[in-house]
């Protein structure tokens, strides 16, 4: 679905007078491979380059060197720009700053309007996507009247209306309360059930537990790759990159240190309970 090969991205820094005074390498020789229908999480501390990588995935930023292919199309090719953005939709962190419409249903229609979809087809898509994200009861409301979780679900509905193959989420839960976070995680599961690819950028490890594959980034490099079990069983290394392992993993870690014979592939509370009860 999305492939990046030796992707490098530099941005210039400016002094107070607006003169370029340096170049910062935000991404350095990155190769990632996101397969169709998979749930991929990208983890990393602030400034590790994970958001920059996300913006590369739908041509909001273009590589300084290396190549990104989205659904087989090179992002450097300007002719394919709108196809790329349609097939790789993006949900951002701040729920307020990505809603354009003054009414919920109009916001969902914004993407299809831009793509030039005929009016009747827009209504079909809007109705379908509102229902898929459970936003039907709010369709005539102002977005300002929604909670954070509902706003993010609206944003996802707005992306779905463009009928993408992949949804990239750039820390969609960072500004939400635990309730809103659960709403978004449920929405992600719904997307996966419909065979869409999801790329989740986050620094909440609990959200990454259910991913098919994880990339850990630090200062512009991909430093770890693997399944959640592989990544989280190596608690020492992920701590080195400024990440906190999920709580359950920490508990398991401590228990093993105390001599409880446990398997390191336990990632969720249910699994831990199961394992302990079958001792």
């Amino acid at each position, binding site marked *: 679905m999305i492939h990046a090969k030796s992707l490098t991205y530099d941005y210039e820094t400016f002094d107070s007078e607006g003169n370029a005074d340096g170049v910062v390498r935000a991404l350095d020789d990155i190769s990632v491979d996101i397969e169709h229908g998979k749930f991929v999480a990208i983890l990393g501390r602030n400034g590790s380059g994970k958001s920059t990588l996300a913006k590369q995935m739908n041509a909001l930023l273009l590589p300084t060197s290396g190549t990104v292919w989205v659904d087989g199309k090179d992002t450097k090719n300007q002719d394919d720009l709108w196809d790329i953005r349609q097939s790789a939709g993006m949900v951002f962190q701040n729920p307020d700053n990505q809603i354009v419409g003054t009414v919920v249903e109009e916001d969902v229609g914004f993407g299809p309007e831009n793509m*030039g979809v005929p009016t009747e087809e827009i209504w079909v898509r809007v109705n379908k996507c509102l229902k898929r994200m459970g936003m039907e009861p709010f369709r005539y409301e102002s977005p300002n009247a929604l909670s954070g979780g509902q706003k993010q679900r609206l944003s996802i509905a707005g992306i779905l209306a463009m009928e993408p193959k992949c949804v990239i989420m750039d820390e969609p839960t960072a500004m939400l309360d635990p309730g809103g976070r659960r709403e978004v995680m449920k929405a992600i599961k719904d997307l996966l059930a419909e065979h869409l690819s999801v790329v989740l950028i986050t620094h909440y490890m609990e959200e990454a537990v259910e991913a098919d594959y994880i990339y850990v980034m630090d200062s512009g490099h991909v430093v770890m790759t693997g399944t959640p079990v592989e990544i989280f069983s190596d608690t020492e290394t992920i701590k080195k990159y400024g990440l906190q392992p999920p709580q359950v993993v920490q508990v398991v870690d401590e228990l093993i240190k105390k001599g409880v014979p446990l398997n390191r592939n336990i990632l969720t509370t249910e699994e831990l309970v199961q394992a302990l009860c079958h001792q």
Partner: protein
Amino acid sequence: MIRDITIGQYYKAKSVIHRLDPRVKLVCTLLFLISLFLTRSVMTYLLATLWLFVVIKTSKVPFRFVMRGLKAIVILLVVTAMLNLFMLKGGDVLVKIGRFTITEAGLSATVYLAVRLIYLIIGSSLMTLTTTPTQLTDGLESLLGPLKKIHVPVHEIAMMMSIALRFIPILLEETDKIMKAQLARGADFENGNIFHRVKGMIPILVPLFVSAFRRANDLALAMEARCYHGGEGRTRMKPLHYQKRDYIAYAVMIVYMVLSFCGGKWLPLHFWVF
């Protein structure tokens, strides 16, 4: 509390006037305002009164809502009326109090001016009361469409207006937050003279602007990510289509304009002021 503020003054109701195409309402309001200024006979004003009465009744907007708009112009109305009443000389002197005189011409000019101003406000608030801001923006975009030929960025202006409508409540809320944050740090917005108070606004405005720019930047990215690339090749979710009722409304308006223009001339009761 602050997030409940609605922009404009839309009054929710189910009426023919509410359902009319926003373009019809914009054009008719404009024509009505023109009719107020082009003629000056008692008959045309009676006609305008009747017209407003009928429109208010059919729109189902309560009378006091319509009158609310007048509050804003009370001072303007009183000042201009006073100036007209005492300054304009002509015709017989009606009242004389010391150095001030009220003449016939002064009195009639005052009355006409007051009526005109009041009808102007009522007429235009009827439009905003029965049309949502979104519809108004759509209507304007469509009416100003021909200006695209002379490179007026009509679509962009309409898009800016609707984004402004979306963000005004958010920025209001933010202003509230910043004010509280500054109050907590000991800022004083209530005491001192006007200059002091204006100076006190700076610590509110600077963070507000910074955040507005940040929001604008985020929104631009989000819009681009959703394939926004200007008005070209864009379709509409809610396109404007004239219905039968819209043509009827136009027809009624034309009849009104004709009556208004020659009203004074063929009606026996007319009298011209000048």
